[in-house]
């Protein structure tokens, strides 16, 4: 596997803030994998996404320390709120998704092909002619992801992408991430929703107070899903089961 992002002893501080948001983080992110980032609010998960994606300090200001190597310039980012991420320029979903490739000045046919492929990949091809303003939150967030994927990013970072969605919408969105990785991109997703993260992440990074405290497969890193809490109380040794199916074989009378 090729390392797409390499961070060595990276620290980051936002402008105007005395406290570093990241401290001494060393990690590599590989192409073709889904990496989860989790931690309590304020632990630095969102910051890690911005730094790994090369957005901080370029667009946020602030000071980066340590070494960051980013093997690509094609990085996509998705946030929780779909409405901050639309251009507001297009009157159709297809137009919205085509905005990215069109702004690169590629030929018309290539732009449309990229947009249509991204819509198909996310299962929203049937929405192509709809006005984005008429979509539900779940549909809109898929369109946002499609818009970013139309740029064919090598690295896709998502910051709690399902926070505003209902459970069905959230499940649908998380289920897409492994397929994005299967096409060769590295996916980096931060969320406090450890249950869903455990289902899709090849690897999970746990942050505490800006430091990377654990990294590894979900079962080795996560221990705070509802099921894991129950299993721990039942005396299960680590690694704890994270969902109901895993727990059934581990708890017995």
């Amino acid at each position, binding site marked *: 596997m090729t390392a797409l992002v390499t961070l060595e002893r990276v620290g980051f501080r936002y402008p105007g803030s005395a406290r570093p948001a990241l401290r001494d983080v060393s990690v590599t992110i590989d192409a073709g994998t889904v990496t989860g980032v989790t931690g309590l609010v304020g632990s630095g998960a969102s910051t890690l996404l911005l730094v790994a994606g090369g957005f901080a300090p370029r667009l946020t200001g602030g000071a980066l320390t340590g070494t960051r190597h980013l093997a690509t310039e094609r990085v996509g980012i998705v946030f929780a709120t779909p409405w901050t991420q639309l251009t507001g320029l297009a009157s159709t979903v297809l137009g919205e998704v085509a905005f990215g490739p069109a702004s690169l000045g590629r030929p018309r046919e290539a732009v449309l092909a990229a947009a249509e492929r991204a819509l198909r990949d996310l299962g929203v091809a049937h929405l192509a002619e709809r006005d984005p303003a008429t979509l539900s939150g779940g549909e809109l967030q898929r369109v946002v992801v499609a818009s970013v994927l139309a740029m064919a990013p090598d690295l896709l970072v998502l910051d709690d992408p399902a926070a505003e969605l209902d459970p069905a919408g959230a499940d649908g969105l998380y289920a897409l991430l492994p397929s994005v990785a299967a096409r060769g991109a590295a996916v980096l997703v931060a969320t406090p929703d450890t249950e869903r993260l455990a289902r899709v992440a090849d690897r999970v990074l746990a942050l505490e107070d800006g430091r990377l405290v654990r990294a590894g497969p979900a079962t080795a890193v996560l221990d705070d899903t509802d099921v894991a809490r129950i299993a721990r109380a039942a005396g299960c*040794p680590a690694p704890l089961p994270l969902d109901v199916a895993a727990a059934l074989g581990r708890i017995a009378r």
Partner: protein
Amino acid sequence: MNAGPASGAAASGHAIRFEDARFAYGGTEVLHGVTLDLPAGSAVAILGPNGAGKTTLTRLLIALLRPRSGRVLVGDWDVATKRPDEMARRVGYVFQHADQQLFERTVRRDVAFGPRCLGRPAAAVERALEELGLVVVADVHPYDLPPPSRKLVALAGVLAMEPGVLVLDEPTAGLDRVGRDLVVAALRRRNAAGVTSVVVSHDVAFVAESAERVVVLREGVVAADAPARKLLRDAAALAPLGLEPPPAAALGLALGLPGAPIRVDECVAALQGARWRGA
């Protein structure tokens, strides 16, 4: 600021009654005669698909909307006769995007805004900050905090008003486990003191932890009204809502744990009581 009646003053809660309440936006009726009786101190969750009328129902409680016919009562107040700022003495309403309402320069001052408008004592402000773990950031600007923490600040601002009824719209979106546990604890504490809570949420695990009773709204009518312990273990009833039983309930069911647990601590107690072993 507002010299209202003294009757709504803190501590004990209020019962809620919907009597054949109907509501229409323009010509389209979205609530078709809802009748509900929620005694003081009840912990109620409202579930339902988008567009079922959940938000319409809760907005009636604070007079942001008035029923077209029928009545909505909070204690002995008919909401049709009150303005929202008068209802605020009895009903604390936390909006889904409540972080957008913050405006003061410190967390503490923003939490104190509601009590100040109502002329209520400031002691409740410190209690609310403490309850939601905000004491350490009390002098920080709310917008210098991450968005999920801002949600807690907004909730604290409503708790500090010490309303007899709490209405929370999707309070857990984006919160981490610690934040969710703080919200659950605050709700349970209020329920025990007689405060009525009404929670609108898609988050069934949170509903299981915070509600005793679940009302399901579908297309503007009450489709189900059952104890949470019954409804949240019923996969067939939840499926049409796009929901599944919460993990604790599902595990309890799969293992056949006694006492029909739906909460994490109930599962833990059941497992320890029956001497289950983890492997």
